[in-house]
């Protein structure tokens, strides 16, 4: 019984650590892809371009 419980919690720990590690790597990749687009979208909504620094319209 004790051995089964130990194995159960050990598996849970390995699974949790693995999931956390992979989730962090996946999240970093997604953020790296999404953040430049989001920042550009945000800057265009505010009326200026983040890349060429020009103003799109007068506020």
């Amino acid at each position, binding site marked *: 019984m*004790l051995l089964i419980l*130990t194995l159960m919690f050990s598996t849970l720990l390995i699974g949790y650590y693995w999931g956390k590690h992979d989730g962090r790597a996946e999240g970093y990749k997604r953020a790296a892809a999404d953040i430049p687009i989001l920042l550009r979208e945000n800057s265009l909504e505010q009326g200026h371009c983040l890349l060429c620094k020009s103003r799109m319209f007068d506020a």
Partner: protein
Amino acid sequence: MSFAIFETASTMIAVILCSIAVKLIDDFLDKEIDACADCKNFANLLGSGVIVYGMLSLSLAASINAAVSLPLFLASYSIGMFNDFKKTFISGLSGMHESLLIFFLGVILHGWHSMLFSLVFIFSIQLFDDYLDINTDQPASCRNIAQRIGKIECLLLAIITLLISWQTNEHLFPVVFLSTAIFYSSLLYYQKGR
């Protein structure tokens, strides 16, 4: 029957006295750190005499049940030293070397079985303590295992090591665990206001 009750009660008292000794010595060593973090510390309450009470408590524990209390104390020392494994101590040895030396001395004096049970049990208590203290311990000190490996990982590892210590000595584990739980609950009640 009455002998079994007496034996269990005496072991419980020995474990509680050993826990008091470890706590008092730990408070004496961490006096400055706890003063900076504004934590309750027995060394500030009892003054420099705290180390004498620690020694007295350990002597009483050893007089009652040396076979249980001394391996627990040596394991606590070993785990405590391992936290500062790079630091060089008065002996000229690093924390890791002192930790290993004390562990092997414990093995020679008290046997593999006893020392292994004590080491795994104390490591489990250390992990539970670090899990509970994750928000109160200073992040800069890098001594909290939960801050280093993660809160859930620390909790799961604490449960696993507790189960391993239970498997190592099924006869002694319930008594030692109950005594430690009583001592730790009393300590948490005392430190509630910190």
